[in-house]
């Protein structure tokens, strides 16, 4: 469901909707690289691991009439941040779960994330599975550790969108996000002005759950 919709703001029935998207997956599979490619059309061969989580936005035009803005949480994927993940996917409208097609174990991790999302997240959440680093196997096919057909079969069974992507060459990156946007209920959102589950604007969802000061004095709070 769309989190925020501006109705009638533009002539000719232009539609604008804003959605929350979360990236999940093992560390180093290329989540940040995919986002950076999508948002800035850049790629770094050497990227330092994400610390905590990064928040970015990107707007795409689906057609002349329709604009979709993504608010993206790029999470770090490390074990120690696991308990924070629900905070990022709780009100997400869509998720991209990423694995590295040259690392079989990263698909297992991805499957675990899909399971968790399907159990815990928004029930209408759109999930896409992205097998990243496709460029590596284009050069050296023997580097592939996850056959396309296997991942595809799994995606179908779990009702996920599926792409093999390369943040490096940009292959399928735009396609991935566009496909997600197309599956999001823009029409519905646009007409009924439907809001995200918990708040008026996308952003406040995260914050609005917290009573002021509820976290303070927790483990990190001051005890004085």
């Amino acid at each position, binding site marked *: 469901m769309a989190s925020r919709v501006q109705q009638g703001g533009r002539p000719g029935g232009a539609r604008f909707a804003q959605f929350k998207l979360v990236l999940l997956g093992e*560390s180093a599979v290329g989540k*940040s690289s995919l986002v*950076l490619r999508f*948002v*800035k059309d850049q790629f*770094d061969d050497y*990227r*330092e*691991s*994400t*610390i*905590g*989580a*990064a*928040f*970015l*936005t990107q707007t795409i035009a689906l057609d002349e009439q329709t604009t979709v803005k993504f608010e*993206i949480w*790029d999470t*770090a994927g*490390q*074990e*120690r*941040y696991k308990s*924070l993940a629900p*905070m990022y996917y709780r009100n997400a409208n869509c998720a991209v779960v990423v694995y590295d097609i040259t690392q079989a174990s990263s698909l297992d991790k991805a499957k675990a994330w899909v399971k968790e999302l399907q159990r815990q997240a928004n029930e209408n959440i759109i999930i896409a599975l992205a097998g990243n680093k496709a460029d590596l196997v284009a050069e050296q096919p023997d580097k592939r550790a996850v056959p396309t057909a296997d991942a595809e079969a799994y995606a179908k069974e779990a009702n996920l969108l599926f792409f093999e992507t390369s943040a490096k060459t940009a292959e399928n990156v735009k396609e991935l996000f566009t496909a997600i946007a197309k599956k999001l209920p823009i029409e519905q959102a646009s007409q009924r002005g439907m809001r995200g589950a918990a708040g008026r604007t996308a*952003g*406040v*969802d*995260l*914050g609005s*759950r*917290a009573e*002021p*000061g*509820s*976290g*303070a*004095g*927790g*483990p*990190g*709070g*001051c*005890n*004085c």
Partner: protein
Amino acid sequence: MPEEQAPGAGSTQPCGDSESQQKPQDHINNGQVSDQKQNDIEPHQNEDNTQLAQSQELTPPPLPPRPPLSQAGSLRLSKKPSRPQLLSTPTTALSLADVHTQSYNSEDGAGSPASRAVSRKHSFTHFGRFVSNNNSSDGDDSASIKSYIPSLDARVENESILGDVAGDDTNPAWTALNEDYEKDDPFQTIFSPEDEALSDQIQHEFEDVESEQAEGTSEEVALENWKAKLKHFFILSASGKPVYSRHGDDQLISNYVGVAQTLISFYQGAKDPLKGFTAGSTRFVMLSKGPLNLVAISRLPESDAQLRSQLEALYMQILSTLTLPSMEKMFSNRPSTDLRRPLQGTDVLLDGLADGFTRGSPSALLSALECLRMRKTNRKVINDTLLKVRSPNLLYGLIVAAGRLVSVVRPKKHSLHPGDLHLIFNMLFEAGSVRAGGGENWIPLCLPGFNNTGFLYMYVSFFAASETTTTNDEAPPEKDDELAIVLISANKEAFFELRKMRDDLVSQLDSNGSMSLIKTALRKGHASCAEIVPGTVLRHFLYKSRGNVQFVMPAFEPHFNDLVARRRLMSLYHLMHESIHSRTAHLKVQHSIASNATALAWETPLFELYCVAGPRASRAALAQGANRVVQWIRREEERVFIIGGAVF
């Protein structure tokens, strides 16, 4: 703002410092270990050391006579605010003071070179040629600093000005040091050929040991590269598992880690923890912190206290990732825990700290922060804006410009801890990932100085000073051009609340003109020494205000433009810092000379000042320069320091 310590934090800071505070004799014992090693390379000390060395081997040596209580006591009190460390609780530095007291006593009696070596040897090894001219008494010297004393504080005038160190017999440690170097050519350059080699090396210091990926560097080459490093840091678990190494992979370092572990556990087994030793020209310093052992190995001129404070900072970084209780729990559940997994991805942070120490960081050396110079009224507007837009879940808010603080908002009862800020600045400005992400960030972290038991959450967004808009969709700013807004909360759900506060803050700073003032000040960079003190002989200085825990320095340019020149300068500062801080006598001004630099260190209850001038600068000119710096600081005090900050 940053006072010594958050009031609430004291109780939550059991980081095991008490041990080193209360057992200065441990240092001394290990100092003897150091002497023992040095016998190999310094035969002239041989006789004197043999006995001590043997006693170390056979039985625990008798404790050295304790310094007179009154002396030690007053020293502790007076030195406390300026301990050279990142944790603001007095730690190892205290015992260092005792070491020197010890040296004083011994000199009084037998004049034992061994005790001299205990106190000074390693810290001066590479600086050997930086010679004090305190025995000279040419006309120049009669121009004592006294005549230029600013009337900052009456006590300054009365007690601190030993304008002429020459022949100060009341300070045997100093005399001893001097004797030591009379053996050398006193007017050699500060950096001997050996030091030139070090200077060359520093240019390759931060390269990977297997850098040339040309078909896999041979193991020998990698090992050679590894051995050539000026500096190593290891962190091991108590059971000997590698946790972190700055250089080399597990395979490469495993033998060395094994040796380190054996040494450490041998002495721990003997209830006499190893604190440090010297092998050849390399100093090894160990620090035990709960379940971790940290080792610094340095060929740069740094003292044990300085190396130890670097290890403290690495330890704080680990706590910052894990929190103390959770790390302790991991080890108590499974003593063989591999901490690399939970620390995954934080190597860049540890590397950032380590490399900062190797390059030489004024902030780390002085345990103090630097502020962006601004008019008082301008800063007040920014402070007021921060207070106005403050959101309910905010704990601390910072505006930081290229590593320099612009403004702080904080609760009345919590000051900011310099060690914590060092970790934050390292994360933001040294490790690239936050800045390179190009977005906003929400980062759970523990600030151990504030509370080492739990996490806080940090909102970070970067701006480039050169752009006119403040949207986030710009390319990541250049390193010296970056402005960060940092908002810290104890509430992990506060991201959007703080994000809104950021938006409000930016729009208000934009509309009241503050943003452009900040950006102008940032773009202007540091003033040069000549701008601050026109016509001076000074080329660079560090001024630390003890009360504010902040420091001021001019630009490195035009005299210290590259890594090598800066490292040399920093080495000089390390030397002066160590000699000021390890002194027991009331020596407050130290003047030193060599063929390519002269320097002056000046300590008062209010400040520490380190000045460096060219080789032929006269003593009077140096002193005059120092005084003019002090006068300038006094005039500019509310511009160069954040005093109080925005408090709610």
